[in-house]
């Protein structure tokens, strides 16, 4: 089987320094700094088939972006190695960089002072693309994203949603074989999120790139990803399908109930505990309302991340 992405014991440790509170410690820091090391990604083994769409989920600081940066060659690994399309990413060879794209939802990658259409013309030169073909591709992608009307407006004058659409076009212009999407819908309103999600869904289905997607919106993951990777404290803790993860989460149920004269209460319990729980609350008093709901992926992930955040 051919793997587009393979890692072997890849890890990254960052070095920083600890500064204790107070002015004196700031002064002391001029000559004496206590170096601290933070393991952002523990030795990780990963194999991703060509054409697979992988959702990478984890709480802030879990190591998602570090993994993407390692796989795109932005940073070097502390240990281990990676192969992406047969290349060592950190060597950043031109042939490799022409085949990948990294979309950072929180950073502008197009040029702030010029119009997107000028940015795309420049990108066509950087990626050595045929100008007419690149122009046609911009037309096609902007039509699909409903944003033809802003192509000739400077990037800095566009709304966040429009800017993100422009960034997406820029990241797809050279038809990358591997696409890293780091929170592509962050900060966008629901309509813009939906448009981008639909667009990406269509694009990856038709063009078939290998995709690693990180997002805090679980709709992005459920709609787009066919494989889920959960990362926690720098380690992969789940690798499987979205459905598999929900099942593995012990079939949690949300029970909402209200006693007379008391506020509404909510509990999360497993199916096996349900009978015992019902007996307990019914013995406590007269129930005014009672509801049982199946948990969805969003909820399971939310609980998972909440738990992880507390542990961090």
């Amino acid at each position: 089987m051919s793997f587009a992405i393979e890692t072997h014991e890849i890890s990254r440790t960052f070095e920083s320094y600890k500064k204790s509170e107070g002015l004196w410690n700031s002064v002391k820091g001029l000559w004496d700094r206590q170096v601290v090391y933070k393991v952002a990604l523990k030795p990780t083994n990963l194999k991703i088939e060509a054409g697979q769409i992988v959702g990478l989920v984890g709480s802030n600081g879990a190591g998602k972006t570090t993994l993407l940066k390692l796989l795109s060659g932005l940073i070097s690994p502390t240990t281990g190695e990676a192969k992406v399309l047969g290349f060592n990413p950190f060597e950043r060879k031109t042939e490799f960089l022409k085949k990948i794209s990294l979309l950072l939802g929180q950073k502008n990658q197009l040029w702030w002072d010029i119009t997107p259409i000028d940015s795309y013309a420049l990108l066509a030169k950087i990626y050595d693309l045929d100008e007419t073909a690149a122009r046609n591709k911009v037309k096609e992608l902007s039509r699909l994203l409903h944003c033809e009307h802003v192509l000739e407006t400077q990037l800095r004058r566009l709304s966040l949603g429009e800017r993100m659409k422009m960034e997406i076009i820029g990241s797809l212009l050279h038809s990358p074989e591997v696409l890293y999407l780091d929170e592509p819908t962050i900060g966008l309103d629901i309509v813009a999120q939906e448009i981008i999600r639909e667009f990406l869904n269509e694009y990856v289905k038709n063009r078939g790139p290998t995709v690693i997607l990180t997002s805090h919106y679980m709709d992005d993951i459920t709609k787009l990803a066919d494989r889920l990777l959960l990362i926690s404290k720098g380690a992969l803790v789940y690798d499987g399908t979205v459905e598999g993860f929900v099942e593995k989460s012990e079939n949690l149920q949300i029970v909402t109930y209200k006693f007379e004269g008391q506020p509404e209460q909510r509990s999360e319990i497993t199916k096996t505990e349900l009978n015992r729980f019902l007996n307990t609350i019914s013995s406590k008093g007269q129930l005014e309302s009672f509801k049982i709901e199946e948990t969805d992926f969003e909820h399971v992930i939310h609980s998972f991340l909440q738990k992880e955040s507390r542990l961090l």
Partner: protein
Amino acid sequence: MSFTAFCRRNLGFFKLAVASNLEYRLNFLIDSTVQPLVSSVVEMVLWMAIFKGAQAVEIAGFTQNYYLAYALWATFVARITVNWMYEFRMIEEIDTGSINGLLIRPMSYFEYYLSQLLGYKFITTIISFIFPVIFISLLELPTVWTRLPAALVLIFYYLIFVYGMSFCISSLAFFFNKVNSLTVTKNLALWLLTGELFPLDLMPENIKNFFLALPFSCGVYIPVGYITGRIDHSVLLHGFKTTTIGLIIVSVLGFFLWRKGVRSYAGTGA
């Protein structure tokens, strides 16, 4: 990668700098014309005051008109041969992680900003040099017009060396994050070393020779001295030599700093 693709891409960066700078037209016009013009006027008035105070016809063998011509050209040439704008931007990009968006493109960071710097200085030269040309002609100050093309070649050659220094300094941001103070310190030193502050021939002979042995004198003194007739061809050729040596040194240093810096880079920010 073909050479045509390389040229096409770098021409793109060159044009990007022109388009980006002309986007903010007021800022560009003030930076390229008003600032050097004000500096020129201040320096010319200063030289007139010096000559009047000294009640001399010549200082170090040159008349007042030579100093006025020097002051006029020097401020405009210095505007071309200084690079703080892109240096600050490069430091900022490495510090904040904005460089990420450039590192994943199939191009080198070095060529990206070098072509932009040349594009920016090219448009600045075309627009700003109108003023010294007009004033020199009107005031009939000494200038050998036929020497201007050779001086411009040295100015732009020296600019590549200046960019090499900027690349080294900004590469230090990988290790120390904020290194803008180095840019300020370097530019202050260059104010004297290039001869922008005053012509190097006013210095004691041994200091002048030492300064001329360094490539920095090609930033102002050699091209302006050559245009205004203070120095001859041999000094200009010497300038090309020292700039070449300087360029080799900063290229080697920049290569190692960059390679080591990128390895330790933490990809700050998203």
